[in-house]
């Protein structure tokens, strides 16, 4: 069911509806005419005709509502799927943490707005493109004077609608921003209530809430007055037009220039004729909202962009070194490369520590290594094959990743671990938990491994989550281990466990670690020092310590960590 079909369907509906209306009003006027003018009981077929049109009209309305609602469901569904797969295709580096979560949530609401767009706005636009023309055409033929009135007033009403519409939307937009400011003011006061209490201002704030609400009301009413006024003008125009039809029909009836039935028929048609204009007026808002939502959705889709399809090609990292050659990467809309001509080699089963100030390119470097980003030039080679020429999923078979703030999904703990190796047995999971020193605290949970995690496993402390992330990496058992060393807020006990588990995990693997601890860099086979996208130093602790570079300066800073000691 594509868009053309939808529009054709609606157009066909409108045509059928119009014909039913014509027949219905004809039958009704004929019945009344027979009784009132001719004082005789109308023929049965007129009643049958009227009853049939009533049922047909109801059925048509039912069908149209069903049809357009189903279309809305279908479009929303397709948009959501499409959006989600685009975001997935774009990869984590584009879609990112946090920020997109919010954007997506609001887009999901935006998609819901399309409901009204498809069920009300589009049908009434199409209806207005069909019904008036048919009725005007028919009336011109049947009673040209009334037809002429309809023909002249319709464009006038449309013109009014357009005029008021633009004026209203201008003023509305101007005031809309202030409106949304106001409604979040209340939220602001609620969220800051604790602060207000400490500052002793909560009583005064109550009055503020009252005043803000009052202003909110006044501004809203200002906006609504304009919107309602436009509704009134439309309604007046329609009423006056109907009255115009009625009065001239009346005069002609008195003069005997017209039969009663024709007069009644035209009079009955007039409200049906103006109804779609009024409906369009009320649905105009839904249309604007829907259009705005659609725009936002397509923006997000474009941002997510297309991912290049790559060939899947097997890689084996074990016993192969990873060669980084003149790797350069630039984030979109950024002048300076985040990674600038970086070359180095990661030997198998060694530990490489990445150090440097924040924003120096360490994280970008590991994202490139994992294939989340594609380099602008240069590349990463394993066995003389470029990893970014292969499908990321294939390459990632070789990789286990332990980020600083690991994410846990809304599923059971076991399911979260199994992501790393879906076919793992219970024994393997337990083994991984034990290796990561996580077995003990899991064992004591009432549901054990089947504990359901929510809100990013908020029931666990930072140290515990870190150990679960390590368990995941143990389970995956990949030759290449990429880690972002945790920095802060660990208790000494967790710290001990994590160090032990990490050391075990690194054994026999090629490890790349964004390092934050002196202990780690000291034991690294290779330290890569990044600054402003460049690889500025490369060597082990002993070598770099004596160079008068960034690394040595870091160490110096460490000698006096507690500057407050006077």
């Amino acid at each position, binding site marked *: 069911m594509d868009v053309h079909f939808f529009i054709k369907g609606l157009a066909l509906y409108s045509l059928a509806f119009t014909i039913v209306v014509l027949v219905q009003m004809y039958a009704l006027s004929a019945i009344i005419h027979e009784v009132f003018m001719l004082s005789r009981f109308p023929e049965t077929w007129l009643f049958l005709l009227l009853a049939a049109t009533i049922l047909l009209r109801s059925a048509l309305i039912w069908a149209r509502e069903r049809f357009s609602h*189903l279309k809305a469901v279908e479009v929303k569904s397709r948009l959501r799927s499409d959006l989600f797969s685009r975001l997935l295709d774009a990869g984590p580096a584009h879609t990112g943490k946090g920020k997109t979560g919010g954007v*997506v949530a609001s887009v999901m609401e935006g998609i819901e707005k399309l409901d009204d767009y498809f069920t009300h706005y589009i049908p009434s636009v199409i209806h207005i493109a069909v019904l008036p023309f048919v009725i005007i055409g028919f009336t011109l033929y049947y009673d040209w004077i009334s037809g002429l009135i309809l023909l002249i007033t319709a464009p006038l009403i449309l013109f009014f609608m357009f005029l008021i519409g633009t004026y209203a939307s201008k003023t509305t937009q101007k005031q809309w921003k202030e409106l949304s400011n106001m409604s979040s003011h209340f939220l602001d006061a609620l969220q800051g209530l604790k602060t207000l209490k*400490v500052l002793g201002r909560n009583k005064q704030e109550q009055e503020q809430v009252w005043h803000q609400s009052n202003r909110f009301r006044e501004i809203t*009413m200002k906006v609504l007055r304009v919107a309602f006024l436009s509704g009134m003008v439309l309604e007046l125009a329609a009423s006056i037009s109907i009255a115009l039809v009625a009065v001239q*029909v009346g005069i002609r009836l008195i003069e005997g220039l017209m039969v*009663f039935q024709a007069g009644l028929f035209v009079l009955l048609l007039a409200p049906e004729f103006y109804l779609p204009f009024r409906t369009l007026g009320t649905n105009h808002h839904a249309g604007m909202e829907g259009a705005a939502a659609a725009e936002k959705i397509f923006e997000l889709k474009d941002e997510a962009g297309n991912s290049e399809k790559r060939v899947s090609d097997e890689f084996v990292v074990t016993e192969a070194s990873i060669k980084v050659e003149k790797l350069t990467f630039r984030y979109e809309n950024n002048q300076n490369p985040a990674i600038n001509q970086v070359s180095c080699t990661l030997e198998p089963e060694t530990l490489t520590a990445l150090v440097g100030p924040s924003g120096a390119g360490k994280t970008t470097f590991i994202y490139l290594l994992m294939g989340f980003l594609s380099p602008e030039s240069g590349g990463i080679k394993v066995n003389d094959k470029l990893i970014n020429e292969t499908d990321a999923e294939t390459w990632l078979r070789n990789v286990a990743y332990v980020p600083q703030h690991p994410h846990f999904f809304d599923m059971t703990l076991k399911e979260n671990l199994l992501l790393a190796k879906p076919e793992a047995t219970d024994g393997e999971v337990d083994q991984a938990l034990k290796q990561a020193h996580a077995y003990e605290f899991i064992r004591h949970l009432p549901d054990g491994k089947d504990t359901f995690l929510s809100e990013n496993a908020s029931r666990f402390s930072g140290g515990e989550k870190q150990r679960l992330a390590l368990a995941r990496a143990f389970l995956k058992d990949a030759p290449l281990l990429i880690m972002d060393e945790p920095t802060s807020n660990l208790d000494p006990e967790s710290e001990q466990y994590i160090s032990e588990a990490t050391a075990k995990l690194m054994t026999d693997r090629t490890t790349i670690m964004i390092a934050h601890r002196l202990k780690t860099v000291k034991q690294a086979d290779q330290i890569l020092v990044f600054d402003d996208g460049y690889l500025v130093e490369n060597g082990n602790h002993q070598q770099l310590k004596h160079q008068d570079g960034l690394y040595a300066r870091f160490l110096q*800073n460490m000698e006096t960590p507690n500057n407050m000691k006077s």
Partner: protein
Amino acid sequence: MIIKVIGFLKKYKLRFAGAALLAIGTVLAGIGLMSTSGYLISRAAERPIITDLFMVTAAVRFFGISRAVVRYAERLASHDLTFKILMSIRYTLFRKIDQSPVKQLMGKRHGDLLSRLVNDIETLQNVYLKIVSPVITAGVVTGIVFVLLLFVDVVLALIALAFLISNAVLIPLLAHRIAKGRGKSEVQTKSDLSAFLVDRLQGLYELFWTRQKTSTEKQFNGMQSRLDQVERKNAGATGMLEGLNNAFSQLAMFTVLIFAIPLVLNGQLQGVMLAMVTLGVLSSFEAVQNLGNAFLHYETAEQAAGRVFALTEQEPDRRGKSNMAVDSLESIAFRKVSFSYTKENITLSDINFSIPAGNRVAVVGPSGCGKSTLLNLLLRFWYPDKGKILYGNRDIYDLDEEQYRKMFAVISQDEHIFNRTLRDNLLLANPEASDEQLRTALHKAGLGAYANQLDLELGNFGMRFSGGERQLLFIARALLKDAPIWVFDEATAHMDAQTEQNVHRILEANLHGRSLLFITHRLIGMDKMHQILAMQDGKIVERGTHKELLQKQGLYAKMYHLQNELIPEA
């Protein structure tokens, strides 16, 4: 619960009556317009002299114009009333929350809860507009139409009444069933889908390195098709609702017509009345056709009202026995204080310590050890389960709440910057302060760069302060408030080393003999403290000065060494 919203209408009796009358008037004008038009042309067909029709034409014009005008007035009046009600609800709610213990609002997701609340209040907009007003209009108009038709003919009146009532009852019942289905499955599936989406996108790195992209997509499409199924079912039902609405009104007209014809033919009813009655009955259904919609909204409104009023029903916190005055710096003492948020986990147990006037005390420990709870107890946001907290030698709950809190200035990650100007944010601490005083405070707090930008919009709408600047702003507030006790709660977490030292320097320069409670997991500036309490699992495990604790080689020393192992990043 919706009854409670309606309760707010009592405050605005006149407006309420006005809006309701206008709503009824709108429908009546519509009926008037259609029936007088029918009468007009029927009468015209009898070819009277034109002056006989003046009254009727005037009536047609009157109803035509008044329908538009009355509807305009009705929409204004009803919306005005709605916003007045919302205003009262907001105000009442805020006052109730302000008076109730802070506990309920301080949960992990209180931000979520609050924004939910704001949306809920907006949902209550629908209560008058889409529920109360249509129900009243339906009732009154049905009555009026019935009485008017009684003048015409009893049978016709009864027919119209029967159709009006069935439309008013059956359609809402159907709508209610649809809404119920929605409440259970559609809303749930939708929010599941949204939660799934946000959860998976936040963990996208994990999804990628564990290569779950394809399976996640499959899962998403599975949930999606379940939602589609529910929505499709509803689409059918909604369509039926509209179709039935149309069928009811037209069948009513049809039946009235069939019964009226014999009346006309045997002279019991004037012929001119036929068109008038038929069209009048048809248009009277406008009064009952919004009821279906009303009941589609009922469930959502009911739930929203439930959440909103649940909060207003909390008993205000009245634990204080007396309201003794407080006006000067005194010592603080925790005596055997225990506290827990939930029954299962004890957050603090048997806490004993004191802060003599003018002393500096640090509380350190790994995150989750209960440090920040101390602050909430101290500020009377929570009530200790056991033990008591003394100010001087009086229980803090014997003191006047406001005066007591005046003694404290809090600098923490939790403090709020309001969506207002920099000036307004500062004035909260001292409404009488002059611009000059504000500038001085900014300079002292190390925010001199902002001294000439008092009109700067802060918070969500204006520029955002960096984490460090936020804390400095709170110091500026503390200076303006001139409280004798300063409390820092993890104020320097997530700060780079330089900013952190800056905060310590500014603290040092401004403390001047005030008492200080410094809660932190960063062990910086600890040598300046008179006493350090090291906490773990809700207990104080070590206490002493920096030097003493380092010699002990316990928790504190371990934390200190761990911290000094970190390579500074900037």
